């Protein structure tokens, strides 16, 4: 009913706009007299395909899989970062709007800022990964004569701890420090581990089962008054009760 009214109103506006002697009519998204609604107007998220690589080249794949496996090692509490899909997750993120820095303010001039002013470089997140992983491989070739992926787990931990702790300095760019690169990789790895499985990581909701997060559930009225009692139900994800 209201849609019909809206349509006729839109037609009316269009016919008015066609008359040159009248003042101009605002174009496009004008809404009046109704709540705009159309079927299937929602935007559900699209689950990523687990196959193939969209951003990383084979050398980068080996490095990032080795990194996520050291940041999240396999143990009795969960599978490792690689088996949880963290590398796939990062690959898909870097191939999309996040990697391009689509939401960021990207206008020059790019000047070095203070620590309180945040990242001021001109590289997008994808560009930072490309540069960072290359610099990491250069570093391990210089120090260990092999790529990061070929190091022993203990050596990999030593390199990562050095990047985290400030004792390993990769050759990056002014305004993009080794510590910043490490923090970015750590943040994205944890995103992959803890995000909804539809983004490629957190396979089988491994992280949610590990910490006891019930995932995409939306109603806890039955438990709000049960103080100090562990919530009993298993997690669900947006698309599946199985993850």
């Amino acid at each position, binding site marked *: 009913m*209201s849609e019909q009214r809206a349509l006729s109103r839109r037609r009316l506006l269009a016919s008015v706009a066609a008359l040159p002697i009248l*003042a101009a*009519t*605002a*174009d*496009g*998204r*004008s*809404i*009046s*007299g109704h*709540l705009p609604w159309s079927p299937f107007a*929602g*935007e*559900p*998220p699209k689950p990523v395909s687990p196959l193939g690589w969209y951003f990383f080249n084979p050398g980068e794949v080996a490095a990032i899989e080795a990194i996520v496996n*050291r*940041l999240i090692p396999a*143990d009795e*509490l969960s599978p490792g970062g690689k088996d949880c899909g963290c590398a796939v997750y990062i690959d898909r993120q870097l191939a999309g709007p996040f990697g391009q820095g*689509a*939401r*960021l*303010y*990207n206008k020059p*001039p790019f*000047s070095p800022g*203070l620590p*309180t*002013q*945040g990242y*001021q470089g001109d590289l997008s997140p994808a560009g930072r990964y490309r540069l960072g992983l290359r610099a990491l491989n250069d570093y391990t070739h210089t120090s260990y004569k092999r790529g990061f992926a070929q190091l022993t787990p203990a050596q990999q*931990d030593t390199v*990562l*701890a050095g990047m*985290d702790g400030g004792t390993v300095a990769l050759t990056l760019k002014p305004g993009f420090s080794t510590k910043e690169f490490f923090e970015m990789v*750590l943040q994205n*790895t*944890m*995103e992959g581990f803890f*995000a*909804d499985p539809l983004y490629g990581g957190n396979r089988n909701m491994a*992280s949610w089962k590990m*910490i*006891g*997060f019930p*995932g*995409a*559930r*939306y*109603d*806890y*009225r039955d*438990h*709000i008054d049960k*103080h*100090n009692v*562990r*919530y009993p139900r298993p997690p669900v994800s*947006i698309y599946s009760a199985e993850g």
Partner: protein
Amino acid sequence: MARLLPKRDAVIIGLGWTGSILAQQLTEAGLNVVAIERGPWRDTATDFNIAYMQDELRYAIRKELFLKPSVEAMTMRNNISQAAMPMRDYGSFLPGDGVGGAGVHWNGKTWRFWSSDFSIRSHLVQRYGAAKLKGLQLQDWGVTWNEIEHSFDQFEYLCGISGKAGNLKGQVQPGGNPFESPRTREYPNPPIKTGYAPTLFADKVRELGYHPFPQPSANLSQAYVNPLGVRMGQCTYCGFCERFACGNYSKASAQTTILPVLMKKPNFELRTECEVLKVNLTPDGKMARSVTYIDAKGVEYEQPGDIVVICAYALMNVRLMLLSQIGTQYDPVTGKGAVGRNYCYQTGSGARMFFEGKHFNPFIGAGSMGQTMDDFNGDAFDHGSLDFLGGGGISCDPSNGRPISYRPTAPGSPRWGAGWKKATIEGYNSSMGFSAQGSSYPVRENFLDLDPTYTDRYGRPLLRITFDFPDNDIRMSHFMSDQLERIAKPFGAKVTTVSRVRKGWNAVPYQSTHNTGGAIMGSDPGTSAVNKYLQSWDVPNVFVVGASAFAHNAGMNPTGTVGALAYWAAEAITSKYIKSPGKLVPA
């Protein structure tokens, strides 16, 4: 050349909380109103879908509902000796975007600032003497509690705020906040449930002699029909509240309280994805003629109006005034000029306690599910022997356990590699926090102006924020941290940590989207940009509505007071201005 459109009675810039309230009240008074909104149309069923709203990555981490810096960024620095740099991503605060504005993804904590806030200078001078205020640019707001109380009431009944009155017409009520200013009636709904951690917190601080009470909440305790006839549902404690829109119709927002009525009115039109570039003044600069905006296709329009109401986010209100040359830019060196003056923020600190064997189920939460004590807020306690003014509300209000962001671990725990998982599991399930939300008082050095270097996508200068935590507020906040430490002791936690504010406001980690001031209300055109009715002193057919009008920021979330100011300004327009257009307060 902009295409000229037919004139409207009123043009509203921005359709968030304040724009929706103004549009509703002005159309109700018979005015023909157009609202121009930069962002998209958004509504519950289509855009806040209950089947996929619980997506932490999409909404909380990638910030889908927030303003993108590529659309409008700001620059920041801590003081005028530094070069301001653009916030290339928003971090410390997250402005809203689109219909409903930040009211879509707020938490729903709905406070009333106190009587002593509106008359802060008079109150403090009377109690402590003028010398106590030295270095602080505290000013009375020009409006008094008795004048504006009914506007708070209007906003609370619109939203269905769930809470417990602490002071009914001067009578202190058991279970409520004894420090609040007198209200004329009870909240429209009883308090929501507060879960395990807040209940524990309330029990402990009550034993210490303090006065905990349930936070007034726009997450509703029960189904409600508001005075406009709009229906809302009961909160389900889903833990996807702030940074998210509500898929349950149980968090008050423009969508859940006003738009179903407003959008059907024949005397209201909304234009979305249209960005206002400036307000155009008459050649003498004394009246606004129209606004210029650009639509999604890049076409420029000029929309004339008899009244222009600026209802964007607080910071954007100030920027639009400066871009339109409404009022005079504030100068921190001379202290002269009103636009950009008294920019304030929030001064927070927190405590976290790690227990063994407790299960807090942190994912069971709501935006305003908590217990607060105001014994150390505002001027509820004697500052006579203290070296600061102000204070903060101390709250235990767990809003979520979303694990990308919420992973508290005991100090010294590894963040990755061997051992981090065990520490994460323990901290996730068996820790609880409480925090102090401290006031932010104005000083001469903190202000807003236009950046000389960086511009937006249309080439207009970005807003520049010059801000650091003033010494007074640091001393206040350290006092609050001391209280947190003291209050935490009887809980008997295994480990307790307490944070302390330091000099050097950092734009990167999230702190608070409570940016206030810059276009403050007051009774002196020399020190305020708008009068007590939020009417520009300089251009009387322009009203500037929002937290931009706060002359200082209290230790409370701002939206309750923002909503009250919106009703207050709307009443001034409909009951005074349209009957006799002109300056409502003689300058």
